């Protein structure tokens, strides 16, 4: 699939979601797994847009790339916000507390890491690169197209 580049604004979340859904369909992911993948990408994209760009007073794009191989579907998100590794805040300590006692925040990254098979981060060439990997069902791996 061709990569997608969208402005770093919340209005772009819908088109990112559509791109991920199309990639999930191409990869033969079942609906439940496709939903989790879309959620994971949506949460990371939201963090990039809200914290990386809007709250920091910066403007920039989000690049989304889907790559298929026999065994996996990899979605990569790249942005030009300040370096930020989401893995630094994984499981919120308050996850078992009643919601009225919780601080607001930290849920998005938690949902991402819980929803996907692998989550990686790297900072390359002045860009944050968030990498989300889902295993494809066995037998779905027709020749790689992405």
């Amino acid at each position: 699939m061709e990569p997608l580049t969208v402005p770093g604004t919340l209005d772009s979340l819908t088109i990112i979601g559509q791109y991920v859904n199309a990639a999930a369909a191409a990869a033969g992911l079942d609906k439940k797994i496709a939903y989790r993948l879309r959620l994971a990408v949506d949460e990371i994209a939201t963090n990039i847009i809200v914290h990386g760009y809007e709250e920091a007073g910066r403007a920039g794009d989000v690049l989304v790339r889907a790559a298929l191989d026999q065994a996996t579907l990899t979605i990569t998100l790249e942005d030009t916000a300040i370096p930020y590794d989401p893995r630094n805040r994984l499981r919120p300590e308050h996850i078992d507390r009643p919601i009225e006692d919780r601080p607001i925040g930290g849920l998005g990254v938690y949902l991402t890491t819980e929803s996907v098979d692998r989550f990686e981060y790297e900072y390359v060439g002045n860009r944050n690169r968030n990498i989300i990997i889902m295993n494809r069902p066995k037998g779905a791996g027709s020749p790689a197209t992405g």
Partner: protein
Amino acid sequence: MAFKSALEIVNGVAKITLSGELDAAAAPAFRTDVEKAAAAKVKAVALLMKDLEYMASAGLRALVFAKQKMGTQTTIYMISLQENVKETITMTGFQNSVTFMDEYDAATIEGA
């Protein structure tokens, strides 16, 4: 599908009908209805979620806000959830703070 949130207050219960996809861009509309419900000092909030196809953590944050604003005595009911949305709620432990219900049960919700 575009997100929609519609609020009506019946017998002291805020019924909020949600449909479409609730992501961070859509969450302010939901939060506005939650704020109205809190201001009306309702005894319960019933979220009618049959047509809500997707919910990100931004939707959950609106619920945290609701619980904190309304206090523990206000019950939040989630009615007719789709399976994927339910999974997200369960993953975050929110099911301990809300009540799931298959259909709107007026006797239970409005009679509370």
